[in-house]
Every structure is written in structure tokens, then in C-alpha cells.
């Protein structure tokens, strides 16, 4: 018995998947910005990240999608949660009330930006996609990072090193030198 999906259904499923992923992303973003409790905002951020990872996977970049999960959900979100836990007790952690004018102003600003982007996207003459450089697999990415873009790669690692050293210095300042 071979019940493969019939070819007519494939475009519908594809569109449905894409729409679903976008809805997940937008819902996550809304949850992240609208919720009053910080920890729920982080959960919204996680949902948003997962939606974006899904979109990456949908667009044929499994490597980027998995990295998105590993780094943003597994590391960044967890670190943010941890920072929230180390701070004050939960009741003080409601996000601050915004002044009355902020709401309409935000809607106006956001609407303008959305309208501008949509206008640009609808009217612009799109370039034909550039020639595909490589298949975008992990091997290709690695090779180009270590050859063509090795300078950028090294610079990024220096930035990260400085960040680590900086955080160590900040964490160290309160400590007694005889300890550990």
C-alpha cells in the first residue's frame, strides 16, 4: 500500500506550512511584547525563535534552522531566563506601565514603518536572484568561513573573546582575592 501525498495537494500543504510558521512567529512576537510578566515575554521570544527556525528550514537551510534552535532557544533564551531569576522576586518584575501617549504614537510609528515596507516590497523591481554560490550545506559554509571570509570570522572571535573577558572583569570586581 502506497499512500503518497497526491501532487495537487503539495502546493496547498506548502502554503499552509509557510502561513502557519509565520503565524507562530508573529504570535510569539506579540506575546513577547505585550505580556506584563518578564518570564512570559521570554516564552514568547522562544516561540518566535522556533517559528523563525521553521521558516529557515522551510527555505531549505536546515543548518541555519538548527543553529537558530541551538543558539537562540538553547542558549540565549535560557540565559535571559537565568538573568531574570537572579534578579528580584517575581512581583517586581512586571514591565513598567507606559505613559498614555505611547500607545497611539507606537501604533502610528509601527503603521508607518509597515506601510513603507509593504509599499517598497510591492512596487520595487526585484532583481533576479544572484547565481547560487553553493548548496549552503555545513561543508560549504565551513569552507567559505575558513577561506573567503576567514578575516571576518577571526574578527568575530576577537569580539567574543573581548566580551568574555569583559564579563569576567565585571563579575570579578566584587570578589575577595583570597577566595577560590
Amino acid at each position, binding site marked *: *500500500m*502506497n*499512500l*503518497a*501525498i497526491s501532487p495537487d495537494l*503539495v502546493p496547498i*500543504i*506548502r502554503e499552509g*506550512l509557510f502561513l502557519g510558521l509565520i503565524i507562530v512567529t508573529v504570535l510569539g512576537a506579540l506575546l513577547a511584547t505585550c505580556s506584563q*510578566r518578564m*518570564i*512570559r515575554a521570554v*516564552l514568547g521570544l*522562544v516561540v518566535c525563535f522556533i517559528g523563525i527556525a521553521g521558516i529557515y528550514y*522551510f527555505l*531549505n537551510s*536546515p*543548518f541555519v534552522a*538548527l*543553529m537558530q*534552535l*541551538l543558539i537562540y*532557544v*538553547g*542558549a540565549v*533564551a*535560557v*540565559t535571559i*531566563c*537565568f538573568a531574570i*531569576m*537572579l534578579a528580584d522576586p*517575581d512581583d517586581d518584575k512586571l514591565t513598567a506601565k507606559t505613559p498614555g501617549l505611547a500607545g497611539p504614537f507606537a501604533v502610528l510609528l509601527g503603521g508607518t514603518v509597515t506601510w513603507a515596507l509593504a509599499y517598497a516590497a510591492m512596487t520595487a523591481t526585484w532583481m533576479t536572484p544572484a547565481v547560487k554560490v553553493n548548496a549552503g*550545506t*555545513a561543508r560549504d559554509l565551513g569552507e567559505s568561513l575558513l577561506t573567503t571570509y576567514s578575516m571576518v570570522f577571526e574578527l568575530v572571535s576577537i569580539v567574543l573573546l573581548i566580551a568574555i573577558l569583559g564579563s569576567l572583569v565585571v563579575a570579578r570586581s566584587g570578589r575577595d582575592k583570597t577566595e577560590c
Partner: protein
Amino acid sequence: MDLGINVVEMLIYLVGIIAFAAGNAAYLVWVERKGAAHIQRRTGPKEVGPYGLLQPLADGAKLMSKQLIIPDGVDKPLFMVAPLIAMVPAIMIFVTIPFSDSIIARDINLGLLMIFAFASVNVLALLLGGWASRNKYAVISAARAVSQNVAYEIPMLIIAITIVMVSGSMNLKEIVDFQAGGFWNWNFLPTNGNFLGPITFVLFFICFMAETNRAPFDLGEAESELIAGFHTEYGSMGFGLFFMGEYANIVIGAALTVILFLGGWYCPFGLTDGIWWFLIKMYLLIWTVVLIRWTYPRVTLWSLLNLSWKILIPFSLFNLLASAGLIKILG
């Protein structure tokens, strides 16, 4: 995106994976209880069925028929979501685990990366569950679990990179195929001159136990200090899902160790290869984990974090460099 998926095959794998995860969770609890009992000179479960073999079913029925109590004062949505986050990534991971040459739900080229990506989501469940409970023990436990997971994820990933370098692939099937041809070709102790194999294996095994919050690293649920840790407030199936997630993670960790170091479904001495070898190796590893849990005392949080940051990370980094050098020298 390729949608040429066979619906029937997909359903079979879906049901099979969930059944495998749930069945293993149920019966590993039995193994754990029997093992613990015999180590402590007790009998363990023996009333329900022969040798207590039906005990897991009774436990499952009990958990499912209990009322789902949500205490006042908890953060309700987070409290309900957390057990799901504990279970879903575990099920997702099983999709890419090759049990044998042909039994694999989806052969993904980046299989190893996918496992680590979903495994890293798991810690969010402990964190959110602990935090949402609004119970000081649960919060302390969540903070501990997170600091532990963050600390041990680093050496684990570095060791995984070492294995990827040795086998030249992130596809789990290719990693296993690289070790074909008997015991002496396994990454555990290869005869091609890479004498760092056993060290890598031990480092990985320690990280695996710490990542799955198993004793002697189960500080997140140290019952003498924290009651039951992050799942103190959970009852019935909420607790059941956390528990199933934990055991599913143990199975995944053991399966991953078998794939990376112990030659997957290949027989150590050239007899018929197949899924049975995979399962034998996997259950032997799980039995080792159970033995370690009941024979070693729990470490303190301080020494746990020290072990990772001051010993495992430098060692695994050095191991990575040395392995790279060895590969270069041996060609």
C-alpha cells in the same frame, strides 16, 4: 522543500517512536526500582504480575486517572506548558536516530546537530516548570538545573565536534558506517592509532549523565534539600510527562553514545549486524547509568560546576586539538 513523504510510513514511525519512548520510560522505571532494590538488599516491586512486571502499567493507570491539580498562585499557562516542553523535543530527537541500517524515520544530513539543537530546548522545561510553580524549592532547583545544563553543554558539544572531525560527517548513519567492521574500528578504541578514543568516550559519558540530570549529578531534584525539585508542585500526568521526558532523554543519551562510540548496529565480532546489537549496547549503557546512580553519592553543586568549568572544558578542548593533530599525523 521535498514533500515526497509516504503518509503510511510517517504514521507508523510516529506511533512507533512515541510507543518506544513511552514503553522505555515505563519499563526503565521498573529496571531502576528493581536495580535499586537489589543493590540495597530489598526485593523491589513484586506484587503486580510476575517479578512486578506489570507494575509500570499500574503506575501509568494511576497517574492518568489522578486529578490534575493546579495550585493557586502558580503561573497557570507556563505551569501547563512546561511538561509539554519536556516531552516534545525528546520525541523529535528520536526522528533522526538510526536504530539500524533501515530503521530510521528521517535520515537527516545534520543529524548530530539536530539532536543537540532539540536537546538544548529541554532545559527550558525545567526552568519554566520550576519558575511557574512559585515555590522556593522549585525555583532553586530550576536555577541549579540551568547552571548545570549550561555548564555541561559546552564540553559535550566540543566532544561531539571531536567525533565529527574523526568520522568526517554529521550524518549519524555515516558516523556509524565509519565504525563498521568489528570492535577495533569503533571510535571507542580504534586501532588506527587514535589513542584518545577512550578519553573522549569517558568525557562524553560524564557529560551525558550530567545533561540528563542523573545521579550523581541530580542536584536539580536532590530530595533531601529540595523535596522533589522543579516538579514539587506537579501531580498526575504533569509529573508523568516530566518523568517520561527524563527517561526518554536517558535513552537518547545512551543511543547517542552507542552511535558515536560503540559502532551503532554493527556487531563487535562480525556476526549478523542489526537493530538487536544496537539495543543490546544501548540497554547495557542504561544499566550502567542505573548502577552508577545507586552506588555513588550525590556531589555538591560547587564540585559539580567545578568539574565542568575547571576540568571537563579544558580537557575536552585539549582533546579536540590533540585529536586534530593525530588525524593530521595519521593521515
